């Protein structure tokens, strides 16, 4: 299972510290949602027992600007995330095959509906269930976040859209182990398997993208393989 976190300077801990803590907490990997962060991935991978995935989270206020960001970062990052949060951005994200994950679709004024769920499935865009507000807010704001998660879950379930789950930690202190996330998820109506699948999906996505961008991959079904030389 993987967790996706914000690293310094986007968050309050460096990618190395997050990876260190994630390894101790039993995760198989860590996705760094970089906005301004530029960690040395090679060094961290060499020093920690878990996988560290380089991802870029594009944050923009309009689809036009987001489009620029996607074009820029798609060739450079293993995972490309687009932060949603407005109806226009959510709509834009689920219609872009180049986007791997639509993050925080329900934050701020964002909303989700059956059209978006269907588009997300067709384009293979993962919709993120952000458990962060459930872990860190209380009172009315948390009630609202849980209500939004429920709506999103019902749509994703019904239209069989792909999804990921994350606690969106901004420091190693905000990181929670997967069993804790499962317990939180179960309390607000997710099944334990849903949370585990959502956490594992990050890893599957990273693996898929690495295969697609590796040199041996030519086209779907066509790969360069090593073989014995003819005599």
């Amino acid at each position, binding site marked *: 299972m993987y967790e996706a976190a914000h690293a310094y300077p986007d968050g309050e801990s460096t990618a190395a510290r997050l990876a260190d803590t994630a390894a101790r907490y039993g995760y198989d990997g860590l996705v760094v949602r970089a906005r301004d962060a530029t960690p040395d991935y090679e060094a961290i991978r060499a020093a920690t027992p878990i996988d560290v995935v380089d991802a870029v989270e594009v944050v923009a206020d309009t689809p036009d600007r987001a489009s620029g960001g996607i074009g820029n970062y798609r060739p450079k990052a293993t995972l490309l995330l687009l932060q949603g949060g407005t109806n226009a951005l959510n709509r834009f994200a689920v219609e872009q095959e180049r986007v791997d994950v639509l993050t925080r679709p329900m934050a701020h004024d964002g909303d989700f509906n059956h059209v978006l769920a269907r588009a997300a499935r067709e384009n293979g865009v993962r919709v993120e269930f952000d458990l962060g507000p459930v872990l860190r807010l209380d009172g009315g704001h948390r009630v609202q976040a849980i209500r939004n998660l429920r709506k999103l879950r019902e749509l994703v379930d019904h239209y069989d859209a792909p999804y990921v789950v994350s606690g969106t930690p901004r420091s190693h*202190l905000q990181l929670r182990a997967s069993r804790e996330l499962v317990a939180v998820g179960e309390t607000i109506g997710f099944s334990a398997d849903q949370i585990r699948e959502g956490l594992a999906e990050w890893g599957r996505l990273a693996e898929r993208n690495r295969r697609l961008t590796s040199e041996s991959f030519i086209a779907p079904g066509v790969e360069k393989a090593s073989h014995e030389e003819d005599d």
Partner: protein
Amino acid sequence: MKHLPKHIRPRWRYLAVELETWPDADLSRGSFQRELWFAAQNFVGDAGSADADLTVLDFHFSGCVGETVVRARRGYVSEARAALACIDEISGHSVGIRVRGVSGTVRACEERYLRRPAGVPEERSVVFADSDRTALARDTVLDVRLSSGFVGATELDFE
């Protein structure tokens, strides 16, 4: 009151919990217990909170790491985990919380999962974000002091 016969006493589970904070935080058993009750009540409600009956038994905290044993009623471990996960701050200090394991007796819980963390963090000066800073180091991890607060790092960030 005379204590209950053995077969009718409640059964408990004991959760070994690991705590971590920034170096300037100070936690006590009382503040942790209060925050745990709040978290349980806010998240699983009065009824669920009463069912889980969470109590902090053994509390050790020094130099930004701590260990404690939390008692929950058998069958309510999941609620206990959820409530613990929802503790974000204790008396205004951010905390990292993780359940190391669950046991049926306090003794097994302590023997298997708790290992009294060692000593006081050592102060070091480091270069971080192009200027000299002080950092508090434990093993291979460091908390670097900035004007705005702390940044969590490891040895790797200074190589």
